[in-house]
C-alpha cells in the first residue's frame, strides 16, 4: 500500500486575491465549499471564511494571506482537476 499523506493542500496563490477570484468564478470542478469531507474536491478561503474574525495582524502571523486557499482533493480524475485549476487561473 502506498504511503498515505493526506489529501489537504494549502496553497498561497501567487496571484493573490485576484487569482482566488478567478478560482471562485471560473472553476467548474473545484467547488468552493463551507466545509470539507466529501468525495468531491472542495476548497475554502480562510481569510474570508473560517478566519474572517481573526485580526489582520494575527492572520499575517499565521501565514494566512489574501492568496491562501485550502483544497481538499477528492476522487475525480486528477488530470481534470489540474486542467480546471489551470483554466480558472488563466494559465
Amino acid at each position, binding site marked *: 500500500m502506498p504511503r498515505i499523506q493526506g489529501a489537504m493542500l494549502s496553497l498561497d496563490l501567487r496571484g493573490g486575491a485576484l487569482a482566488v477570484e478567478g478560482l471562485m468564478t471560473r472553476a467548474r470542478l473545484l467547488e468552493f465549499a463551507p466545509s470539507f469531507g466529501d468525495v468531491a474536491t472542495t476548497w475554502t478561503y480562510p481569510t474570508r471564511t473560517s478566519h474572517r474574525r481573526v485580526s489582520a495582524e494575527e492572520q499575517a502571523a499565521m501565514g494566512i494571506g489574501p492568496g491562501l486557499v485550502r483544497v481538499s482533493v477528492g476522487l475525480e480524475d*486528477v488530470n481534470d482537476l489540474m486542467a480546471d485549476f489551470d483554466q480558472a487561473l488563466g494559465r
Partner: protein
Amino acid sequence: MLGRADAMARVRDAMIRAGTNLGPFDAWLATRGARTLAVRMERQSASARRAGAHFSSATRPSRASTIPGSRPIPSMRWLGG
C-alpha cells in the same frame, strides 16, 4: 463498539441516556463506507500529491502553504478549524 458484556451494558445504558447512538441507517452507511475507506484514501492521497506538485508552480512559499510530499508540513496548528 465491542467489549465484555458487563462493560457493554454500561455503554448501552450511557448511549440510551445520552442519545449518542447512531441510527440503524447511519450505522449501515458507516460500515459500508469503511469497506472502501482504504481505496478512497489511497486515491485521494495520490491525487493530492500529483495535484500539489502541479499547483505549486502557481503558488509562493509561505508559512501556511502545505503540499503533501513536497516539503515538511509546518505549523498545522494554525490551520485547524
